[in-house]
């Protein structure tokens, strides 16, 4: 189990551009998208981190940009870390996490179709939930309006 300060100092040392967020329940750090693959590798493999369980992977659409959110924990040390990476809205690309945590295969496919984030080196980046041949906007983005909305009707 690591305390918050130690985690933050460690990561800011590894990733120069990392910024810690204040007032969050769990240690939250914002990193540049390019440094994600190296950081992920270290987080999983370093002996005192061992973040082997990616329990949540999602994306937030802030209209101006997208934010990838990774919730990581360790089944051995039980510490929790939240990593965020901002991506540009028009050309969102980030390195996949699926080679480290296989659960990311499905979660990244979901984010891919729902938010349009492309994951480089993903083994199988296809549509998962949307019907085959879906052409149109990414449904979970804020500017997507469902043509049939029961509640608004």
């Amino acid at each position: 189990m690591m305390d918050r300060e130690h985690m933050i100092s460690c990561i800011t040392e590894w990733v120069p551009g990392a910024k810690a967020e204040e007032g969050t329940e769990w240690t939250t750090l914002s990193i540049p998208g390019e440094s994600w693959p190296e950081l992920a590798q270290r987080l999983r493999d370093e002996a005192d981190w061992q973040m082997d369980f990616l329990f949540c992977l999602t994306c937030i659409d802030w209209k101006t940009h997208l934010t990838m959110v990774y919730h990581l924990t360790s089944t051995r040390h039980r510490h929790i870390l939240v990593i965020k990476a901002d991506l540009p809205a028009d050309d969102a690309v980030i390195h996949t996490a699926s080679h480290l945590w296989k659960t990311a295969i499905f979660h990244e496919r979901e984010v891919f179709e729902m938010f349009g984030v492309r994951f480089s080196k993903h083994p199988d980046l296809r549509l998962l939930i949307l019907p085959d041949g879906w052409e149109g906007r990414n449904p979970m983005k804020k500017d997507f309006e469902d043509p049939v909305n029961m509640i608004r009707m």
Partner: protein
Amino acid sequence: MHEVLGTTTDGDLVINVGPQHPATHGVLHLVITLHGETIRKVDPHLGYIHRSIEKMCESLTYRQFIYVTSRMDYLSAHINNHACALCVEKGLQVEVPARAQYIRVLMDELTRIASHELWWGAMAMDLGAFTPFFHAFRERENINDIMEETCGARLTMNYMVPGGVMADIHPNFQKRVKSFIQLFRSKFDEYNEMVTGNIIFQNRMKGVGYLSAEDAISYGCTGPTARGSGVSCDVRKIMPYELYNQVQFDEILETGGDSFARYMVRLREMNESINIIEQVIDNIPEGDYQAKTKAVLKLPKGEFYTRVETARGELGVYIVSEGGTTPYRIKFRSPGFSNLSALDHMARGSKIGDLVAMMGTLDLVIPDIDR
């Protein structure tokens, strides 16, 4: 797009299991590649019951969005609602009265038993034994009656509200729960007689769908699926919420990693839930069942995440608030979604009959996967 029909070049057979298929319990669509009877590949195609609950919740207030989550994992509706209520309470920093906490835990555990009962019957039916299904429903019916009496509905109760529960428990509640415990205890041996001990069943389950502990963690499996592989992941133990740090219970772990281990975890969990209920049922404190909250709830700007153990595994509710009355973004990390992603890994090289057994022990609820 995908090769859905026909055969592959090396003579393998491509079969669509689902979206309408007796073993998928809903509208799961698996495109499986077969070599004779042996499975080469399983490719799940999801989305047949995708209602985009996450998007829907963005236009609902913090009081309203809870009811929708009953429709995700409809078998543990209470626990889903509970997770959402906890998340909102975390944002509001509301202290839930003790009585409400006791009621919530009781309802959660009853829901867990009901869910496992249904799973047990449905899984036996997947393996071709029809009779256990009805026997499981006999006990489940009692839980449903208890729920109906207190919450007013049998499946999608919407009983949890931010700050507590919607109504006090029914005067008969404790009496009926106790009589249910007695009934359950007296009928539990039948489960072992009819299914667990059966030689055909054991041969169908043992050594089938092996999932190592490393793979279970890597695929993000939680709940009984991971605990069958020996991964300690019960949120009630590692991040206790409500009463769970006050009650005595064991985290059920099996080390087999095969379908039989997952089966045994669920079966033993039913007994463990009964133990929790027995500890709690007589000690419900007097007091309010609901904390005082404002009529219009506004969460402060920020992010809130709660982890809750449902019958299928860890449910995460991630609310991103901009300070308004509705969530800006909400994410449900559903257990079934991650558990399903391990199916391909587990199923390769086994027979079609094994695939059905694996799907049975993963306890897939399709609306939970699709959301």
